[in-house]
């Protein structure tokens, strides 16, 4: 029986706690009697036979929709869209959930005599996936059957010939979707729900639409009014995505398949990452020392390469299929079962230790903008109710924050960092002055469509993503980061955690209460 998550009140007998620091870790002793550590629940038991569970889900859909075999018939146009490489994190060991589900769907499509089948990677404005990444996600069988014949596509949000406007919501939101999707008799969307933000109508309204549609929910207003991104009913971003998704569903038939994973994020060789420090065995301590000292001995590139090669032993805990909203309700319940942790009250300071990988740097560098997005956008938004830190409190982020960018993946990030941030850091001003330029820049557009670059506007989205936290927190301190990069973003650099805690006192007073959010493994604090 896996243990639920819990909050440890730090006392003098509490050992130093592990804090992620990019491609490495730190052991820090937190102030006794005024600190607490939020620990994630242990991984849930996975489904015993995931393939059978998938088949059951397809045959017994949720909501007002027929079983999948009844929706399939010869002569129809079937499109199967799937989440891109930003999920899950770290990438999971093969077979990936997408492979299992898509193979099950294709078995049924073959049995029904469906010839016209196209697979689309729902990239949204993310970078294109490489063949190796597609092969990893879909498996050899699917990749080899569809890629050579050009039936394995990647959504292009900037291809005017491959997009079609299907309407506008009552809030004036454009719904411009992938043409193949719009012209299909059935869209099967295959999703991996790693966090509660994913899935539902957001899958289609972000992954398969153009910049014209995405801008309606990926903007400063929506992100500042999402409390939080992980709590859909209180998320403005999701409200917009839901309106767009519902309108889309009026035009095309969508059969949604969502899967959830347990939070078993690291292989057994690195079991210490998932364990509470006082339970570390001799082996855990030895592997910690070997991993941390080994990482320190490597060059940044080699270190990144080693950490990026980690594959998670995630396993499927649920699969549900059918009508989008009914499916998503069940998915959220299953995610809560794995991730919810009850936390009483807020603290003056919150500490986030960022790991080596986020959704936008798979196989890449976590550059300063991604650190900001990951820390203030994702980690800060991991809450239901209210943030872990009080209004005006201090956010401390532990990450090396290298002043380095992947020139292929993040070209617009470089320009944003060098040209925009020195002039303004105000998200609203950035949106007003720079969004159109970055979104319509031909060079960025070219790189997005033909290379492996994120969309030009994505750099700005990273900044927007942290807009709620920037508005809410009194100060942001980055421990162990590159000074120039940290200061450019308007944050305060600290050499050690002790320094950071002392600097925080300037803002929140002496002896502040401290919460350390020990993630990963992923969890969702419900702050009362």
């Amino acid at each position: 029986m896996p243990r639920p998550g819990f909050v440890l009140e730090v006392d003098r007998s509490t050992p130093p706690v592990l804090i992620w620091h990019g491609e490495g870790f730190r052991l820090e002793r937190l102030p006794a009697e005024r600190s607490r550590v939020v620990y994630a629940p242990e991984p849930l038991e996975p489904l015993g036979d995931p393939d059978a569970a998938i088949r059951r889900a397809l045959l017994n859909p949720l909501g007002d929709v027929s079983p999948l075999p009844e929706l399939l018939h010869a002569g129809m146009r079937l499109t199967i869209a799937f989440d891109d490489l930003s999920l899950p994190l770290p990438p999971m060991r093969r077979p990936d959930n997408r492979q299992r589900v898509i193979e099950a769907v294709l078995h049924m499509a073959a049995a029904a005599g469906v010839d016209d089948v196209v697979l689309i990677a729902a990239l949204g404005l993310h970078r294109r996936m490489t063949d190796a990444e597609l092969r990893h996600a879909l498996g050899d069988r699917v990749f080899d059957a569809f890629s050579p014949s050009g039936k394995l596509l990647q959504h292009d949000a900037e291809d005017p010939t491959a997009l079609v406007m299907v309407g506008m919501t009552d809030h004036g939101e454009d719904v411009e979707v992938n043409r193949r999707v719009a012209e299909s008799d059935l869209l099967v969307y295959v999703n991996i729900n790693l966090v509660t933000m994913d899935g539902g109508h957001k899958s289609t309204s972000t992954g398969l639409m153009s910049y014209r549609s995405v801008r309606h929910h990926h903007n400063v207003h929506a992100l500042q009014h999402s409390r939080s991104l992980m709590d859909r009913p209180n998320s403005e971003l999701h409200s917009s995505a839901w309106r767009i998704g519902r309108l889309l569903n009026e035009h095309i038939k969508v059969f949604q398949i969502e899967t959830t994973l347990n939070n078993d994020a690291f292989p057994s060789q690195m079991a210490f990452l998932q364990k509470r420090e006082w339970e570390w065995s001799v082996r855990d301590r030895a592997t910690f020392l070997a991993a941390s000292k080994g990482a320190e001995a490597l060059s940044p590139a080699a270190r990144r390469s080693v950490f990026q090669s980690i594959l998670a032993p995630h396993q499927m805990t649920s699969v549900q299929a059918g009508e989008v909203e009914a499916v998503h309700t069940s998915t959220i319940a299953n995610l809560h079962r794995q991730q919810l942790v009850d936390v009483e009250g807020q603290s003056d300071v919150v500490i986030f230790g960022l790991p080596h990988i986020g959704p936008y740097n798979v196989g890449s560098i976590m550059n300063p903008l991604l650190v900001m997005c990951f820390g203030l956008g994702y980690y800060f938004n991991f809450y239901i109710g209210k943030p872990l830190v009080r209004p005006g409190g201090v956010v401390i982020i532990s990450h090396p924050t290298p002043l380095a960018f992947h020139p292929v993946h993040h070209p617009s990030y470089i320009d944003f960092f060098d040209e925009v941030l020195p002039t303004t850091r105000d998200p609203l001003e950035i949106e007003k002055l720079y969004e159109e330029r970055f979104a319509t820049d031909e060079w960025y557009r070219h790189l997005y469509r033909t290379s492996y670059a994120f969309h030009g506007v994505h750099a700005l989205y990273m900044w927007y993503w942290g807009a709620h936290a920037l508005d809410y927190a009194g100060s942001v301190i980055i421990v162990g980061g590159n000074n120039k990069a940290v200061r450019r973003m308007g944050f305060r650099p600290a050499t050690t955690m002790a320094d950071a805690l002392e600097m925080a006192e300037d803002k929140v007073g002496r002896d502040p209460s401290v919460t350390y959010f020990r993630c990963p493994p992923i969890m969702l604090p419900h702050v009362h």
Partner: protein
Amino acid sequence: MSTERSSHPHAAAWHSKPGYASLKRPTDWLPAVRGLRLPLRFPFGAPTWPTSVPRPRKQSDLGVSYDTEWARRYPVRLARAAYTELVTRPVLSAVARPSVAGLDRFENIEGPVIFAANHCSHLDTPLILSVLPDRWRHKLVTLAAADYFFDSRLKAMYFAFSLNAVPIDRVRTNRESAERAERLIAGGWNLLIFPEGGRSPDGWGQEHRGGAAWLASRSGRPVVPVHIKGTGRLWPRKAKRVYTGRTTVTFGAPIAPDPAPRQLVSRLEDAIAVLADEASTDWWSARQRAAAGQTPPLRGPDAAAWRRAWALGPSPKDRARKRSPADEKRWPPKP
């Protein structure tokens, strides 16, 4: 690391604050020799345990949970046979000088059987092992008190090896113990069990518990009553030394299992009482008294403690003193 001193001008003041990183645990600098603890800090040393987190109760693999499977493997059985022949039997022959009666009463039955004996001394089990014919002894397990014989790893290993002991919970009914014993019988092992549940506190017999009868009823195997006379004088409970003397082990006729375990309990108790009478007098007299319902009770007279002790005769200490060279064999005798 939190223990690093920062270069910040206020760092020293900060580090002096109560509860902060620089506070050293009182155990951090203990000498290495104390409790064999090395003065290593986490992660080089073991982590401390937060006070607010309850320690999980460690599942002990001792006591009832001790796994004695290894002691029933063939190489260990061979080693035990050698140990019994070379150590147990010679020692018991010297200490207890046993005479054996009644082996013929069960030589024609097929095993497994349950040997049920009265219990006065730690000598009882090795004594029975040393007098039982090989046929029975080589496949005999002894049900032994888990709380006494299996409370440390060394003791558990020794008794599992030397006596082929299997732990049984005598404090409360334990399903695991009972099922294990049942499995052993089903696997062809003879059981030696002491239905009194422990050594006699005063030398007299105690009320029988139902374990032996229950196992017989469940397994359908006969119970062989055994009476041991004399060990209680040689090494009684709480004695600090072992005295030498004579003992008698009397085996009775097998008792068929009774579907009603309660009746079997009293039949077994009666049978051992008759064997005790036989060991003290002779078979015919014992039979006559048994037929007349006049077998002396094993539990002794229902009287005050001193009278029960008095009825047992001189204490082993007296006998020992009498035999001691200082008292008896001095030559020339004391004036």
